[in-house]
């Protein structure tokens, strides 16, 4: 009961902060929409519907997963910037409840952001998603979000370890995910030495499964409905994503716990670092 109320505490805080920073929320959503549209319009310019669909899918998925990852990974850095880090860490809240509270709000926020971006894209693109397995894509997103929460928890330790460099390193981490996951291109076009890293990113599997479910790997043409695959066709990717989620979340919590203990010994758990 207390754990739920404490989780609600973090969600309440983040919701209030979202409302107070509403103009920045609008600015970031606008930028994400424009960025996604400019990417998707490359496909329109090429008069290539398959490319347009691939780019649109990549843009929307990345809009969702990157915001989810970023909100969790940067949660400690935000606390330090606000100066509230010490009060949060001395509250009688288990780290599991703390990080789950932060992650739950991040999940809701990133879902709303992705829906806004997707809806906005239809202002720029004349696309029909008839025939696509949209429910399947939502399922893939939900399963992959657990793995991304785990990655966010792992990355959240960086601002605990180094107040100065941690936030910067978190952005590098996110950049690497974007690069290796084949968001806008097949992983096979990456240099050979980078390609092995793509197997470690949940986004790789989320993208691969979503492309099948959208139907861009089948025949695509104007006036023809898409031929989105059934869930069974992407079961191997779903299982990998679920496995990653099961591994990354406890791993992230365990690493966070170890780093928190180290920070308490080194005197890093303070607002100025």
């Amino acid at each position, binding site marked *: 009961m207390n754990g739920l109320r404490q989780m609600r505490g973090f969600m309440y805080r983040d919701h*209030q902060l979202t409302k107070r920073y509403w103009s920045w929320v609008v600015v970031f959503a606008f930028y994400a929409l424009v960025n996604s549209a400019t990417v998707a319009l490359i496909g329109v310019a090429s008069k290539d519907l398959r490319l347009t669909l691939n780019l649109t899918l990549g843009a929307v998925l990345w809009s969702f997963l990157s915001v989810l990852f970023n909100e969790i990974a940067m949660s400690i850095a935000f606390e330090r910037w606000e100066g509230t880090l*010490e009060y949060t860490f*001395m509250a*009688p809240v288990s780290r599991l409840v703390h990080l789950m509270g932060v992650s739950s709000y991040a999940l809701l926020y990133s879902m709303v952001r992705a829906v806004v971006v997707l809806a906005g894209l239809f202002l720029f693109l004349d696309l029909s998603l008839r025939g696509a397995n949209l429910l399947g894509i939502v399922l893939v997103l939900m399963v992959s979000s657990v793995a991304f929460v785990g990655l966010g928890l792992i990355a959240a330790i960086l601002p605990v370890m180094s107040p100065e460099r941690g936030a910067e390193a978190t952005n590098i981490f996110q950049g690497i995910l974007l690069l290796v996951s084949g968001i806008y291109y097949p992983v096979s076009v990456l240099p050979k030495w980078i390609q092995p890293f793509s197997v470690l990113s949940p986004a790789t599997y989320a993208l691969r499964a979503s492309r099948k479910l959208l139907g861009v790997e089948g025949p695509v043409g104007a006036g023809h409905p898409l031929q989105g695959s059934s869930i069974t066709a992407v079961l191997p990717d779903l299982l990998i994503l679920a496995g990653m989620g099961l591994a990354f979340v406890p791993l992230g919590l365990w690493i966070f716990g170890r780093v928190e*203990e180290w920070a*308490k010994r080194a005197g890093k758990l*303070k607002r100025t670092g």
Partner: protein
Amino acid sequence: MLSPALLVRDVRKVFRKRSSEQWALKGVSFSVANGETYGLLGPNGSGKSTLIRILSTLLLPDGGEIEVLGYRLPEREREVRQNIGRVSVDAAFYKKLSARENLVYSALLYGIDQRTAERKSLDILAGLGFPSARFNDPLEEMSRGTQQKISIARALLVDPPVLLLDEPTTGLDPQSKRDVQEFIEDLRRRKGTTVLLTTHDMAEAERLCDRLGLLAHGRLVAEGTANEIKEAAGTEGLEDAFLKLSGEAFEKEEAEA
């Protein structure tokens, strides 16, 4: 004999940076009885805040023993957290959020529901002379003194048996300072709260504290009531006693080095 509310025994803390190390606490021992107000005095860098942060469970000591209400740290961290309130020199809040939002957030973390939190917050703030009309104003629009009153309300929302006050009146205007001091006195009278107070203000220390400890260069160099300390130092004022006793400690350390 009842166990003390706070027990600090031979606590040591060193901060290591590359090749150098800096001892913040070099074997500090003292205890604070239930309902007592104990003042820790010392110059900047003497180890006062390090000690408060250890008691707040934000820092692990390198040696020694600590108990808060009989709960040993770091093993019983959760229980200690549930039973302490802290006010630090900086009122650390989400500045864009209102007093209400900041206090509700904090209360939820301690398992208090929103309605109770709002009612208690207003009660406590009224006792501190905070105008209720400003309850929904963002913190960034409030003076430091007003923010510090909200910080005290946050610490008291959970009725903590132990209150850690780290320079709570530093930088406040005279009226705010008086409001805060009167509130601390009243709190002790009404609820018997145990208070550990760090301050640079000797008059405040004399007024609020039953006993004082003088901390200098990580060591407790004197302890007792204000009168006992003045007597031991052979001075009329606490400030002179403080300078004399901490000065002796510096000389002693230099001799040891």
